């Protein structure tokens, strides 16, 4: 049984179909990259996996004992967050909220968990700092630590390196790769085809005709070669 299984899913807003007849699966420990043009429905797909939206048709099911609320999520930055007065500690701790149930306050275990994940992301020294005063890379690490508080199984990342400088970008990628090696399943939307080919184990290319398969299959496919070459040509 796969961790995540999409069968003949169609996505869209209202009755306008953005993406139709999509099937793929994610096994435990996979590193899946979703690539595709702007507007091809990548973010919509992610929202549907998270349960924020309903698919128009088809089915998304979870296996291996994965529950809907055990999916960690690294969203793109929102306007609200840009001037939100919150300390790093408060944000990371808020990831534990789905574990505290009806209790109005955080337990000792929650706090311990938050501390561990901050160490993992190397942001313990920033604990008291204000989120909006951090650099882009630091902010992403804070949000990653928060996602890790929410789950240890699967992480969905929506363009985690957009707006980061090259150094922070490569740091972010290796951080995510380390998490994957620790056994956390990664599903990532990415525009960076080079990094995708470097790190991913599977690739889902959303386009008029959809490609899904392992990285090796993608590199050898007509579609993959075409996409890789045009990207090279641009740079």
């Amino acid at each position: 049984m796969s961790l995540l299984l999409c069968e003949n899913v169609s996505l869209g807003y209202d009755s306008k179909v953005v993406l139709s007849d999509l099937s793929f699966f994610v096994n435990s420990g996979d590193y899946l990259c979703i690539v595709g043009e702007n507007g091809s429905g990548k973010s919509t797909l992610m929202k549907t996996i998270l349960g924020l939206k309903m698919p128009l048709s088809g089915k998304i099911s979870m296996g291996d004992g994965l529950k809907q609320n055990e999916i960690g999520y690294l969203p793109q930055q929102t306007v609200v967050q840009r001037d939100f007065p919150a300390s790093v500690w408060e944000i990371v701790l808020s990831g534990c909220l789905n574990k505290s149930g009806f209790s109005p306050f955080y337990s000792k275990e929650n706090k311990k968990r938050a501390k561990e994940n901050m160490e993992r992301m190397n942001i313990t020294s920033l604990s008291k700092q204000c989120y909006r005063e951090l650099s882009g890379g630091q902010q992403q690490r804070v949000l990653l630590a928060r996602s890790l508080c929410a789950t240890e199984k699967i992480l969905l990342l929506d363009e985690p390196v957009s707006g980061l400088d090259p150094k922070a970008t490569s740091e972010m990628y290796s951080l995510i790769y380390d998490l994957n090696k620790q056994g956390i399943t990664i599903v990532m939307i990415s525009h960076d085809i080079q990094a995708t080919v470097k790190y991913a184990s599977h690739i889902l290319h959303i386009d008029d005709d959809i490609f899904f398969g392992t990285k090796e299959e993608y590199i050898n496919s007509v579609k993959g070669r075409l996409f890789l070459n045009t990207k090279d040509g641009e740079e």
Partner: protein
Amino acid sequence: MSAMFEKLSMYFEFPFVRYALIAGVLIALCSSLLGVTLVLKRFSFIGDGLSHVAFGAMAIAAVLNFTNNMLFMLPITVGCAILLLMGGQNRKIKGDASVAMISVGSLAIGYLLMNLFSTSSNLSGDVCSTLFGSTSILTLDVTEVIFCAVLSIIVVIVFVLFYNKIFAVTFDENFARATGIKASAYNFLIAVIIAVIIVLAMNLVGSLLISALIIFPALSSMRLFKSFKAVTICSAVFSVVCAVLGILISVLYGTPVGSTIVAVDIIGFVIFYILGIFGGKRR
């Protein structure tokens, strides 16, 4: 100075001054609590919008000759608050436009009704005092003060109990929802609390100045503090101190209560702003 205290203690002989102070402090405390959330959600003007709804409801209550306005206003305002805050990001008319629409609409209907059916000879005076809350806080009786106290205690308790959830939902609604937090339930809760606070605050500062009571404490403390908890506590203290000062000044010098409190809030904001600039430079 001593003459001032003598005058004050003389005024405090009167029960209505004491009631005003109690009610003022409670309302200031409540309204500051959710200010931070509202400012960040880009709903700064919801206070103004909802207060106009409350004004419209009050006009209807007056026309229908209800004895207790508060019991009529509360459900209507709560309903509108839920309507405004619950739609989320997918609705057709977005945040600021829907606030403006409801605000202007109910203001017009309220005034129209008052004009058509009012029995009072001093119509513009009535409207003015409901909008600016000129003296109504000084005319509270015991039951109103108790009602006000009970509601504000409930608001504070609910806020403390759900503080962590309110933080999570405000900071990142999608993440909260994706990880299994019932975000819409908490949005509903926030909407109800806000509506209750606004109906309470109408007694103190009147319709027009409620936004000030919600926004100034939050904006002032956001100049100085860096964590959500510190900002929330600071804005509560800021709001209560300004309310007490404002009421005392208005009692001493006979100025209108609502506008005096807001004036003190503005002075407080300027002080915090300057402190924030210096605080920023030191680092």
